[in-house]
């Protein structure tokens, strides 16, 4: 059984989809990712689909689901690296992926995520420094 790895990077989860998704794989990813968000308290999810050549209505729905599920667990989702042909096909199919944030590449996706959760990020930093400093 194939599995798509989910990497943790600070407050974010990083998913790079290197194969064309089939239904079972996409469903497993949805379940794994939502569980990981919960387990790691991640604030953001970055999904790289630059190697994905087909996104049909089912995969599109899964991507939308991941974004909505993460949202109610207080994590933002950004999809990066969509191929132009995939974007054309998605719109013609009638699937505008509403509510899913997108960015052209990993770098822009990362800064978009950071800007979305900036305020909270500072809070966490302060907390950690507070912990580190011995109070008088």
């Amino acid at each position, binding site marked *: 059984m194939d599995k798509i790895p989910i990497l943790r990077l600070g407050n974010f989860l990083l998913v790079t989809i290197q194969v064309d998704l089939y239904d079972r794989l996409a469903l497993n990813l949805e379940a794994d990712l939502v569980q990981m968000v919960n387990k790691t308290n991640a604030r953001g999810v970055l999904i790289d689909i630059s190697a994905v050549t087909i996104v049909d209505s089912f995969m599109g729905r899964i991507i939308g689901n991941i974004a909505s599920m993460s949202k109610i667990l207080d994590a933002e989702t950004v999809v990066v690296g969509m191929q132009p042909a995939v974007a054309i096909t998605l719109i*013609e199919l009638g699937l505008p992926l509403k509510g899913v944030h997108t960015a052209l590449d990993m770098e822009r996706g990362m800064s978009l995520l950071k800007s979305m959760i900036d305020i909270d990020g500072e809070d966490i930093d302060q907390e950690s420094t507070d912990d580190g400093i011995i109070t008088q």
Partner: protein
Amino acid sequence: MVLSLSKDTVQVLKEQDVVFLKNRVKEVAVKIKMGLVNQTRLLTAASELVRNMMRYANGGVCQIEVVSSGRNNGVRLIFTDKGPGIPDITAAMRDGFSTGKSLGLGLPGTKRLVNEFDIKSKVGEGTTVTIIKWANG
């Protein structure tokens, strides 16, 4: 006048067959020099139709053909299943209509992605969907 140049049949019963079918369709599309965007449209359409076949009819058969009309070459796919059939095709072709738990984009969306689309269905006997995507269309 649409001429058939080559024919190939793929049985789709398991999820692995779906991957095999998509690869075969891609091979044929590349062979007739279909552009990348049209390839993506054709493969996405095939993906939608094969999912319908798996979900509602427990699989079926797909015939892959290279067709030619004048100077234009294309790929014709004929999906045939012996499933329950579609009682109301007009409703099934409407955006947002679904008897399953999906978005109801499959059939109308597929029609928008290809050049020619034909669906025939008889309740209790099965459904046949035929699509054509031209290499430059």
